[in-house]
């Protein structure tokens, strides 16, 4: 087991990392309240995400932010001419993790900030959260996966409305659009996300990983191919001790204890 004490990510300056009850928490910490994402933050975020994703004790990752806003977007300003955006992109790195990722959102979630959230598996938001891909207002377009992920998540009609007008929408609307999975009531967004992360960490770890693969890879396939993928993954799970434990626990009417094997 990795404990917080031998955790090597303590010294990053733009992200704070901790692990508690199998849930890895990453908080982004920008220079000011706008929590803008600069090149250093991109590099450190990648490191933090990879480190958690490679750590078998981490069964869910919560991506949150310090301060009153999740993020206004990239720190890049003005013209993009001559800038290699490769080192500023982060969303695919996040989307390709085996671990379930949960975005914990509050305040402004704009541009690349929203693109980060879109790359997560689950999104929870505080009631007053505002969402937008406002790039068009500065003569630009989303460049960290937004045109693809937003369109797939909420459909081209709503996605184009957001991207062509640069409008910001509120949490209730985001919930209706299927952009967020839930909005907070009594808990704040981070508490809700951590609690959900804990729930995820109680599930069979291999099953969770295969579920993510089936859903994400399957959404690029037609239904027939997707069904085949699910069948193969479900059959692969037959050999796991976790599945046997799950069935035994069900028969014995108790909570299962999964080892991830």
């Amino acid at each position, binding site marked *: 087991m990795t404990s917080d004490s031998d955790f090597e990510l303590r010294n990053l300056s733009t992200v704070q990392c901790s692990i508690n009850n199998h849930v890895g928490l990453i908080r982004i910490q920008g220079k000011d309240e706008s929590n803008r994402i600069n090149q250093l933050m991109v590099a450190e975020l990648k490191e933090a995400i990879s480190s958690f994703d490679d750590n078998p004790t981490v069964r869910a990752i919560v991506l949150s932010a310090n301060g009153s806003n999740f993020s206004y977007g990239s720190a890049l300003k003005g013209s993009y001419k001559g800038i290699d955006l490769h080192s500023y992109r982060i969303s695919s790195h996040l989307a390709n993790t085996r671990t379930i990722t949960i975005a914990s959102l509050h305040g402004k979630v704009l541009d690349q900030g929203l693109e980060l959230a879109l790359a997560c598996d689950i999104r929870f938001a505080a009631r007053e959260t505002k969402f937008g891909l406002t790039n068009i207002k500065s003569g630009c377009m989303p460049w960290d996966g937004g045109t693809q992920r937003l369109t797939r998540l909420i459909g081209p009609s709503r996605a184009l409305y957001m991207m062509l007008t640069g409008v910001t929408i509120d949490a209730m609307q985001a919930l209706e659009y299927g952009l967020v999975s839930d909005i907070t009531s009594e808990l704040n967004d981070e508490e809700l996300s951590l609690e959900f992360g804990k729930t995820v960490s109680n599930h069979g770890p291999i099953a969770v990983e295969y*579920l993510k693969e089936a859903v994400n890879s399957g959404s690029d396939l037609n239904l027939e191919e*997707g069904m085949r993928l*699910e*069948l193969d993954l479900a059959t692969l799970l037959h050999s796991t001790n976790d599945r046997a434990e799950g069935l035994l626990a069900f028969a014995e009417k108790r909570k299962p204890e999964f080892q991830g094997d």
Partner: protein
Amino acid sequence: MTDKSIVYSKKNSIVSIKLNRPESINAITQSMRDLIYDALMAYSYDEEAKACVIYGAGEKGFCSGADLIEFGKSKSQAESRKIRKQRDLWGLLSQIKKPLIAAVHGYVIGAGLEITSLCDIRISAEDAVFAMPEVAHGFIPGAGGTQSFPRAIGKTHAMRQFLGDRHDRMTAKRAYELGLLHKIVSYDDLLKTAFSFAEDISLNDLTLLTAIKTAAIDGWYKPISIGLDLENRLMEKVKLNN
């Protein structure tokens, strides 16, 4: 035939499949799977049949999922895969090009929700509760749920349901808001409503019904040019019939 775990009936051009193990909330056993497979084959080859209503016997619910007790006595990987490929019920359910109507109530859990998600029209009683608790039990949905459920309600909400607590259930009202259900009625009106949809549908020509479903399902998740091409070809066939 002594096994009455499903009942297949036919009246004129409407068929129905009743899941009939109310003592265990219609939990799906291997033998039920085979019987449903046969029933769906009968439906798909019956040139007179134009709509199929699937519902569950008993007041407790539509279907509580796979029979996990039987599920536990599983065969080897290779054996299970072979069985599944020989009589791939869920593949068949997803590929049938005739209308399927789910009429659900009470518990609609796991495979019960997966069957519902693969139906084209979904009517629910007010009391229905929905859940997909497989990963909490250490496995994944295996009746197409990882594919059909996100397509029905969107990935954001589907992932939430897949990964939530095993006691985390969705009400009929919520399922309706998320687009899973097309209509909520009282339990007493459930079958009447479902069969009345079936009646309306069955007034149409079978070629037309099949063409619409084929275009929508086979064209889905393909480049739109291929989907439009499919639509054109199917429309030519429909034209010859009217």
